[in-house]
């Protein structure tokens, strides 16, 4: 009955331990796992594999085409990274504004993703960033777009024996200007799950045409989601207030907000319109212009 | 005096707080101490059919299991003794503890709690006090959901002639206000430690806001003389009214006597939210008549206080609020009916400005509306109606030494109201 505990010193060792014990729980910062243990919501815990000593998973590396963030990188480190603030603004913003100082010191980006909360802040940011999840097991390495990563609340595409190694954030192509915006509201300023969180990234060419638009949204479905139908409104068009209005008017049809202790679905439907408008305006660069009425 | 006024005087215990030396109840560890956890059912309203603790008692490390049968005088309450320490017939709110287990550690106590079997018949709950007042509503208590005031359904207060007052008014406004339930959310969850000596005398360490009241109630429940129970009031990690009544103490005392060991029960934050007392969510219908110059003439109030599953301080709260229902304002004609209503929610109780705060929101909102209607400055409307020496409250009390005008004048000055 007693719970087993492993603390592998390398990634390979972790994969080996997990291969033998695929029913064990991976432990990173513990900020999602441990509250559930303390609240006695976990009934059948067999073992814990603590990833905290695996240095390879704690790296932030800039490559030519993408930036790599190891799954074990904490929110505090992301929040302190000038590189990410400059080149992956939404991912930076999500970590900077989530939780509390102590939570950001412990909680990791990988844990946020695998926890797959409908309102996970990094989840929403990574969706908008067009990020890829680097997933590894002893037998296979695969790169899965984050937009295909979530299956349901708390469920992801990870198979038994697999560990999330890190995420790849693609860089914008040359000649493309990328605009970002992250909007979030919660019940408190510090320490609270988002009531609605939205991340928008818009890629515009030198002519000001929208070449790509990605909208990630949280708490509007059982997982955080991309709002593809709204994205299409902008692609290959010049960004304008009227297109933004159109997206805001249509958003209701594409969401199914959650109803929980933080807010009602009714409230979320109201507030998402405001945040979506702000996010699209900021990411497109229109926010600084006089808003049309 | 010169050393005090205008100087920062640290609280006598503040250095102990900042260095972590203050000993709160949860910081007490006694040799052989046992830990309590309780069994609950997952519904807010039910008839208890059977309680089976045999499997729980067999868990290694369990020292004592108690049900209502172990409580000498199970029902207690400040005004109406309607609240069981551990329920025998009915569960009336979600999370109400039914069986208490004391074991060598919390894990063992939880394990035993999982083995307690409570058979029950689920009953329809009622959560809204107005609904609870309707004939035919699910009964929270046998005999009706409205608490009695000397045989009457309502606490009734009459001053002057309210209908005449309305007739003399230039304007009449009428609103229905609703407030929300409030949790005190002190940082220190409820906790107590009880130990019994060989002669059966009990010492209880607890963070109580009302030590003697605790002693009185605990002796009543245990059926023992008052000199056999000692309450050691420990530093309180926040109370705000929420630690005015015994919470964990009855169970700890009974388990300490039963097991002969010191017993600690510390609530989790979840238990705090589910089973500790809260500020009541009230419904206030208020009709107010006033003159063109803002003078208040008459007010009619129908007040419904949601007391939750048990009366506790409810009756007292209602009596207390009637005197202050109009805030610091003079109204010569008042008609007040106040109801204390049971619902299947946790018990309500004192919280910062006990039972008065709710009506302040209604009262002051109407003062703002009156200012809007009359076109007067909001402060003028208030100044015009302030109580003064010799005025009479709805409850007939004649006032003396009223300082509200000086206070408000000082606030006006300090805030620079007229310069804004």
């Amino acid at each position, binding site marked *: 009955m*007693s719970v087993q505990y492993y603390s592998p010193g390398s990634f390979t060792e972790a994969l080996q331990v997990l291969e033998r014990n695929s029913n064990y729980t991976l432990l990173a910062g513990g900020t999602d796992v441990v*509250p559930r243990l303390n609240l006695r919501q976990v009934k059948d815990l067999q073992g814990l594999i603590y990833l905290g000593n695996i240095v390879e998973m704690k790296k932030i590396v800039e490559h030519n085409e993408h930036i790599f963030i190891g799954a074990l990188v904490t929110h505090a480190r992301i929040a302190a990274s000038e590189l990410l603030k400059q080149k992956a603004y939404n991912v930076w913003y999500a970590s900077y504004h989530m939780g509390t*100082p102590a*939570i950001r010191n412990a909680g990791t980006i990988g844990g946020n993703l695998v926890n797959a909360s409908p309102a996970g802040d990094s989840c929403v940011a990574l969706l908008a960033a067009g990020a890829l999840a680097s997933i590894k097991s002893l037998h296979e390495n695969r790169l899965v777009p984050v937009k295909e990563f979530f299956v349901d609340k708390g469920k992801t595409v990870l198979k038994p024996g697999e560990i999330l190694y890190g995420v790849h954030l693609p860089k914008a192509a040359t000649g493309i200007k990328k605009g970002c915006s992250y909007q979030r509201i919660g019940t408190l300023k510090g320490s609270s799950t988002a009531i609605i969180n939205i991340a928008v990234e818009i890629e515009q060419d030198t002519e000001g045409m929208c070449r790509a638009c990605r909208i990630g949204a949280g708490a509007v479905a059982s997982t955080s989601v991309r709002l593809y139908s709204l994205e299409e409104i902008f692609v290959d068009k010049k960004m304008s207030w009227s297109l933004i209005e159109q997206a805001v008017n249509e958003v209701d049809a594409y969401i199914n907000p959650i109803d929980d202790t933080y807010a009602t679905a009714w409230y979320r439907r109201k507030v998402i319109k405001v945040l979506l408008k702000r996010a699209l305006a900021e990411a497109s660069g229109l926010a600084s212009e006089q808003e049309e009425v | 005096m010169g050393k005090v006024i205008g100087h920062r005087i*640290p*609280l006598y215990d503040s250095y102990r707080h*900042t260095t972590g030396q203050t000993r709160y109840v949860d910081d007490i560890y006694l040799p052989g101490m046992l830990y309590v956890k309780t069994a609950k059912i997952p519904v807010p309203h039910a008839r208890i059919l059977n309680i089976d603790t045999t499997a729980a008692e067999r868990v290694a490390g369990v020292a004592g299991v108690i049900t209502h049968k172990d409580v000498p005088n199970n029902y207690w309450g400040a005004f109406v003794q309607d609240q069981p320490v551990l329920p025998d017939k009915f569960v009336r709110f979600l999370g109400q503890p039914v069986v208490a287990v004391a074991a060598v550690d919390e894990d063992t106590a939880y394990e035993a709690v999982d083995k307690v079997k409570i058979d029950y018949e689920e009953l329809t709950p009622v959560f809204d006090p107005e609904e609870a007042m309707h004939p035919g509503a699910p009964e929270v208590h046998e005999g009706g959901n409205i608490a009695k005031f000397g045989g009457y359904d309502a606490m009734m207060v009459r001053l002057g002639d309210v209908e005449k007052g309305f007739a003399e008014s230039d304007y009449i406004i009428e609103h229905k206000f609703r407030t929300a339930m409030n949790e*005190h959310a002190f*940082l220190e969850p409820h906790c107590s430690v009880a130990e019994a000596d060989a002669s059966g005398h009990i010492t209880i360490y607890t963070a109580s806001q009302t030590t003697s009241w605790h002693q009185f109630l605990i002796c009543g429940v245990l059926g023992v003389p008052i000199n056999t129970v000692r309450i050691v009031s420990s530093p309180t*990690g926040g109370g705000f009214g929420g630690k005015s009544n015994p919470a964990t103490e009855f169970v700890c005392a009974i388990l300490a006597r039963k097991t002969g060991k010191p017993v600690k029960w510390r609530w989790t934050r979840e238990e705090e939210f589910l089973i500790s007392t809260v500020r009541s969510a009230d419904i206030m219908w208020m009709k107010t008549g006033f003159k063109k110059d803002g003078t208040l003439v008459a007010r009619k109030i129908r007040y419904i206080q949601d007391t939750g599953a048990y009366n506790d301080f409810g009756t007292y709260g209602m009596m207390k609020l009637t005197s202050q229902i109009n805030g610091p304002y003079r109204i010569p004609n008042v008609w007040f009916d106040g109801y204390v209503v049971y619902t299947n929610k946790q018990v309500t109780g004192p919280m910062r400005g006990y039972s008065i705060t709710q009506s302040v929101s209604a009262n002051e909102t109407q003062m703002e509306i009156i200012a809007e209607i009359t076109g007067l400055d909001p402060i003028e409307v208030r100044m015009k109606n302030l109580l003064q020496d010799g005025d009479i409250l709805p409850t007939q009390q004649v006032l003396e030494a009223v300082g509200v005008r000086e206070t408000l004048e000082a606030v006006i000055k300090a805030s620079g109201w007229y310069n804004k």
Partner: protein
Amino acid sequence: MEVRFVLNGTEVKVDVKPTAILTDILRDKLGVTSVKKGCETGDCGACAVLLDGELVNSCLVLAPTVAGKSVTTVEGLIVNGEIDIIQKRLAEYHGTQCGYCTPGMVMAIKALLNKNPKPSEAEIRRAISGNLCRCTGYQKIVEAVQSITA
């Protein structure tokens, strides 16, 4: 299982269950009752300690993961009988009332000042945003910190 770590400068050894939280180990096994339990879900900060110099909620730290690390609590801030300036100023400025949040609050401020000796008011407020205080309204706490950094 056995776990060794450094507590306030001294090496300690404890026998723990893998699921035991650091808060319980400190309080129940090592007698460090300054570390409070307000929620056990990471929300209140009453249990905050420094782990290898970083602020963490000890209620979310599983005991075995502390192996080889160093833990600092308010007791560890007292050097040769001298209390830390944070402990002094919080007391003097009425930054503590009931005191239940205070040890965690002291550690959050310590973590801030270690990294940023001259924080702005906004930085102070951000640094204590994970430490709930139901008594003081935070203003006095902020003033206490400002009195140190001014």
